[in-house]
C-alpha cells in the first residue's frame, strides 16, 4: 500500500509536518517494501486552494492513504472521492516520518471520516 506522509524535509527521517495543504513535502512510502521517495508539495506557495492542489498531487502520486495532522474541507472533499484514506498522526510531539510510518504499520493511527477543521480564507485575499 502506498502511503503519503506530510513532512518538512526530503528524507524518511525528516520531521513530520502536521499541515496537509501547506506541508513542505510528502514522503511516499510503499508499506510492504519500505521503498520511499520524497516529493515537494506544489501547493506550498499557492495563493489559495492549497488543500485541493495537494490532494490532487498525492492522488496523482498513487497514494492510497495519507497521514497528516489535519484536513480542511476542500482537502477532504477532494481526497474522499479519490478513494484516498486520511489518517491522523499526533501533532503535539516531534516525530519523524519513519516514526509516523511505524505508528501507521502498528495500526495506531486513526482514520478521519470528516474534515478536521473549517476552511481557511479561500482565494479572496
Amino acid at each position, binding site marked *: 500500500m502506498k502511503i503519503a506522509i506530510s513532512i518538512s524535509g526530503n528524507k524518511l527521517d525528516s520531521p513530520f509536518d502536521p499541515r496537509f495543504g501547506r506541508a513542505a513535502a510528502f514522503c511516499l512510502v510503499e508499506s510492504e517494501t519500505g521503498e520511499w521517495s520524497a516529493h515537494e508539495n506544489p501547493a506550498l506557495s499557492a495563493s489559495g486552494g492549497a488543500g*485541493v492542489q495537494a*490532494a490532487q498531487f498525492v492522488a496523482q502520486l498513487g497514494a492510497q492513504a495519507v497521514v497528516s495532522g489535519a484536513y480542511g474541507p476542500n482537502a477532504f472533499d477532494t481526497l474522499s*472521492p*479519490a478513494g484516498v484514506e486520511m489518517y491522523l498522526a499526533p501533532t503535539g510531539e516531534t516525530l519523524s516520518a519513519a516514526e509516523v510510518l511505524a505508528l501507521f504499520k502498528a495500526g495506531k493511527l486513526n482514520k478521519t471520516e470528516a474534515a478536521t477543521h473549517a476552511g481557511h480564507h479561500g482565494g479572496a485575499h
Partner: protein
Amino acid sequence: MRIVVASGKGGTGKTTVAASLALVAGEAVRFLDCDVEAPNAALFLNPVIKTRQEVGIQLPVVDETLCTYCGRCAEVCEFHAIAVIGKKTLVFPELCHGCGSCTLVCPEKAISERLDVLGVLESGRTPSGIDFAQGVLNVGEPMAVPIIRELKKWDTISLRGEISLEATSALPGRSLRLEERSPRDDIEIRDAPPGASCPVVETLRGADFALLVTEPTPFGLHDLKQVVEIARELGLPAGVVVNRDGIGDNAVEAYCAAANIPILMRIPMERRIAEAIASGQTLIDAAPEYRARFRELLESILARAA
C-alpha cells in the same frame, strides 16, 4: 476624470472627503461607492435608489456525460477551484474567481457556466443631483472584486437609465462618448474600500488620480505607504489629504515630502466636525467654509491629473 478616494487604514475619512468632493463637483458627477463590504456613502448623500441588479461571477458547471477527465481545467485554474480526481471533476465554488479559463480550455466543451450571485448593484440620484451607484456584497461572500468590476462599468448615462446597461458595455460606443466629454464635465468619484488588497487595487485600476486620505499617526502612515505603492504600480498620480490634523506626529508630512507626494488639504481635528459626521451630515454642510476648500482641492486634482 476618475478620482479614487482611498486610504489604506480604515476610518481615516475617505467617505467624508469623497462625499464633499462630489458635492462641489458640479452637474456631471457620478459617485461610485466601491466599499462593497460596507458601503456607507449613501448615509451622507441620501440617494433615491431606483434600480437594483444582481451581480456575481460565472461558475463552471461540468457535464459529466461529456467530460473525459483529461484534467486541463484543473491545470489551468490558478485558484485550484476545479480538481480532476480519477473519474470525477470537482468544482469548489468558494475558490472560483469566475475567470472562465476552464470553460475556454475544455476540449470537450463539457463546461458551461452559471451565474453565482455575490451581491447587488444599486443606483439612483441624490437630492443634489449626483448620479450614485453602490455595490453591496452579500453577507458571508468573500470576494468583493467581481462586484467592484461591474460597478465600474456604470456611467452617468446608464445610471440615469437613458440607455440600457447592455448598450453601455458595448465598448466602441462607450469609449466614443467618453472621448467627447471634457474631464471637467465628466467626473467620477470612487469611494474605495479600506486596506491595500485586491478590492482596493480593482477600485484604483483605470482611474486618473488617487486621493489618499490619512491621519497623522503611525497606523495612518503605515497603510498610506502601501496604497502609495499600489498607485505607483498602476502609474496613477496621487495626492494626500491629512485628516484629524494636529493629532499624532509629523511622520506623514515627512514621508510625503520625501516621496514627493503633495498634501492637498488638511482637515484639523475638531469636535464639531466629528459630531456632524456622526449625525449624518457632510463636511461641507457642517462647516460651509470647506466648500471653497473642496473646490480648490478638485481644481488641484484636475490640474495634476491632466
